[in-house]
């Protein structure tokens, strides 16, 4: 597809901000249109990186879930972790990646709570690794905003 979707969004965003918004009457219409323009900018950035961000999260969570299996003895939780750590997206569609992402994130919540409840050094170590991974994941998800002028 040429032009790419992100280029189309950025072009439309620029047009909205430069030509359309100033011609609108009233604070509400102008403010709303500027906000729509801002989100078009954000969506343009997301278009290129959305699959990559989800893929990186999924692989990071897969490692944690597999490592967590060694610390978990509850059969039900072990089954949850095994299923989640083995999950693979049915396609590269964002919806398919999100389905696996959500399954893994739910399992991470259970694993995190379980290792915190151990109250030992091994549990603390994995809990800390999970927090570090969540920092990395959250960092990947912050959308880019236009530089203030």
């Amino acid at each position, binding site marked *: 597809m040429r032009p790419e979707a992100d280029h189309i969004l950025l072009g439309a965003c620029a047009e909205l901000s430069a030509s359309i918004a100033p011609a609108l009457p009233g604070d509400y219409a102008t403010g709303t249109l500027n906000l729509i323009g801002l989100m078009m900018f954000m969506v343009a950035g997301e278009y290129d990186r959305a699959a990559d961000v989800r893929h990186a999260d999924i692989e990071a969570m897969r490692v944690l879930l597999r490592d967590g299996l060694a610390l978990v003895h509850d059969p039900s939780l072990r089954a949850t972790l095994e299923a989640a750590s083995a999950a693979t997206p049915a396609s590269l569609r964002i919806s398919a990646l*999100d389905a696996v992402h959500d399954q893994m994130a739910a399992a991470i919540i259970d694993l995190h709570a379980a290792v915190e409840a151990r109250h030992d050094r091994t549990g603390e170590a994995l809990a800390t690794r999970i*927090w570090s991974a969540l920092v990395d994941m959250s960092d990947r998800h912050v959308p880019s905003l236009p530089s203030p002028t």
Partner: protein
Amino acid sequence: MDEIRQRFARYLAARMEGITDVEIVTAARLHGGASRETYRLRARYLQEGATVERGFVLRRDPTGSLIETERDVEYNAYRAYHGTDVPVPEPLFLEMDGQWLDRPFFVMEEITGCTAAPPFQPDPYGPLRDRIGTQFWNILGAIHRADPAARGLTRCLDMPAPADCWRQALDYWAAVIDADALSPQPIVQGAIRWLRRNPPPAPPRVTVIHGDYRTGNFLYDDTGTIRAVLDWEMCHLGDPHEDIAWAADPLWAFGDPTRAGTMIPTEEGLRLWTQASGMAVNPESLRWWQVFAMVKGLAIWLSSSREYATGSNRDPILAFSGWFCTAAHNRMLAERLRDLTLEECAA
């Protein structure tokens, strides 16, 4: 907008005794106000033989909102503080009858010649920063110094026991997250577990909590005088550290934790608050409420995501809050919890 004009004119004519020939000469919806639709309306009418022009601000319940609160909470807060050293607009009418504008609303006086800072700009106040920042913390101290019973607020707000403030607040917002999150949230769930494991000390006394006291929620004029503190829809009674932590949340300061709301250094702000409130800041409490502030923020942003996704409210501010604010608060909260966990492991 013509329909709002006509219907509000009919309302004023019915509500205000002794006025006739009511006409709404200007009407504009204000941007923002994601929890309630906000309109600025200027009315012209005859009163005792003279033509009068007067500005009003109308806050109407939306069809969907970030924050589910009763409009009378906000109205009663304005009524409690109007005429005190906490500047607020004069509340005029609280209307629950849907016949006038379909949904409940309240009306307050228009504050003219003022502006509110946008919340996500690195330096919204420019040279007025220090002057506004000083007032910002003094006013917060004045809010907390007030006796809730003497202000009439214990008649309409629940009074928690001091030791229960944290639990009530956390239970409420954790339930919002459970109800509204559209996907599993490992960061905020981990933070909620940390908060339950590490409860804060009880506050010296239970105070009025504004609930959304931050940059962007007050009006100031071009001399840098704060003329009105707005957006009291989350007002309740609780631990004053809740408001302090919310005001100083890095989300309102472009991620800078040292300068609340991009204004004066937070350390200086806490000193001013201590003087104005007559209470001391407890560092242990503040640490807990700082984590709580991000959890509460995430609850609000996750609710806005749901409202937008389900189509109950298509205001773009909900999409922005649900996306950008969730992402930004998740990152700040994850960093905070990682650091707290490392501290606990080292201890």
